[in-house]
């Protein structure tokens, strides 16, 4: 997917093996993620000063949705696309928090890489659990580190706090992946996802 080829003199990345159906579906998945993220942000983050709360609060639910998306599309690269789109939406549009852009992209890329190495494609329960866990870990670590760079109180965020938050997010992410794979199985029985 990240093969770069020269086409009419311009460098571009090829997403040739993603069909229009896949692309539209991923778009909808991100739209749903965004809605849930907004609800959690208004509900959770507004009442606590600890910035990691949002990461923990969303890890589980967001991972459920991503896992269903991965189970439907199955192609490696899906997570990166989700990361890029989510990053652009959350980083530039709402809540316009720029650091989310690199964090989301790198989180997706990390999950894709791990899946490529260990599973080859998404589909099995384990691949979904691992991918969602890895994504949450990388994303949380990055976000919180960037907060420190921005000058957030190191009395509230210190390395140990960051580590604990990341571990919690990872566990919740993996749990979300597990639920997501269950949902995907049910959607198959409803005839909504083909094999």
């Amino acid at each position: 997917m990240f093969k770069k080829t020269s086409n009419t003199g311009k460098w571009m990345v090829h997403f040739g093996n993603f069909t229009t159906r896949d692309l539209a579906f991923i778009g909808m998945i991100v739209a749903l993620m965004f809605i849930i993220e907004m609800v959690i942000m208004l509900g959770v983050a507004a009442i606590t000063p600890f910035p990691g709360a949002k990461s923990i609060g969303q890890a589980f639910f967001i991972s459920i949705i991503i896992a269903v998306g991965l189970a439907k599309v199955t192609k490696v690269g899906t997570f990166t696309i989700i990361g890029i789109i989510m990053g652009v939406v959350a980083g530039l549009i709402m809540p316009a928090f720029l650091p989310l852009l690199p964090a989301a992209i790198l989180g997706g890329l990390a999950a894709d890489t791990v899946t490529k190495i260990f599973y080859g494609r998404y589909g099995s329960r384990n691949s979904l659990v691992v991918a969602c866990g890895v994504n949450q870990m990388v994303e949380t670590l990055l976000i919180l580190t960037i907060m420190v760079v921005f000058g957030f109180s190191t009395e509230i965020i210190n390395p140990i706090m960051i580590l604990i938050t990341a571990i919690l997010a990872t566990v919740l992410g993996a749990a979300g992946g597990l639920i997501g794979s269950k949902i995907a199985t049910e959607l198959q029985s409803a005839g909504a996802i083909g094999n």
Partner: protein
Amino acid sequence: MNMENAFSYNTSYVGEDSPVHRMDPRIKLGLVLGTTLLSVFLQNVAWLVTLVVMLLALSAISGTLKKMTKFLGLFFLFAVLTVAIMTLLTRNFIYSLEYFSPFFLRFGVMVTAGMLFAFTTSPNHLSQALQKMYFPAPLSFTLTVTLRYIPTLANEAETIFNALRLRGVYPSNWDVIRKPSYLYRGMIIPLFIRILKLSDEIAIAAESRAFNGGNGRSSLKNIKIGRNDLFFSLTMIMFCFVLMVMDKGTFSLI
């Protein structure tokens, strides 16, 4: 609970117009990146405040200030709460305020700049700008779908919620903890069924109208960087430069 209203900001561009709306999205993107980076660099609270005021002035020009206040208010509440909690912990209000104001001002710069971009750039312009910046064309389509369907999905979620209520199930926070199946059964499954159906319809509709991965698309309205855009960028660069110099040359006001 009117979900559609809460997420309707990206279906309300048509008819809106201002010098800021007409600006090339790439310039506005530069403004977001530039001011964010600058805010990390600035140490002095006064100049950070100046930067925020400048961005608010721009949003006032674009006529989006009112829309923004709702979100900025929430952000402000977050900041006040944080300082309050910190005061409780340290029993020192001035210290807490000093400690947090640069952080929240930087945060504020970023959020204001981001919203200025979001509220004055239509999804159509955004995807065109991204395409010009070598953003992969298929992803541009995915982004369009995401932005276009956020309000639709919020609406779908509301309808599903209504259907639950009609069955006598009022999922409150407590119910969800007591019986997580209500969230799972009541919201997630029907939402996914809708997403799967809608995305298939979208894909078929797009291909029926000659969409082929988005490579080689042209555009009815081409965005291009004009004289106004250049003038604006120059002003902004000068403004930021002055702020930087001032910041280095003065002592902390607080």
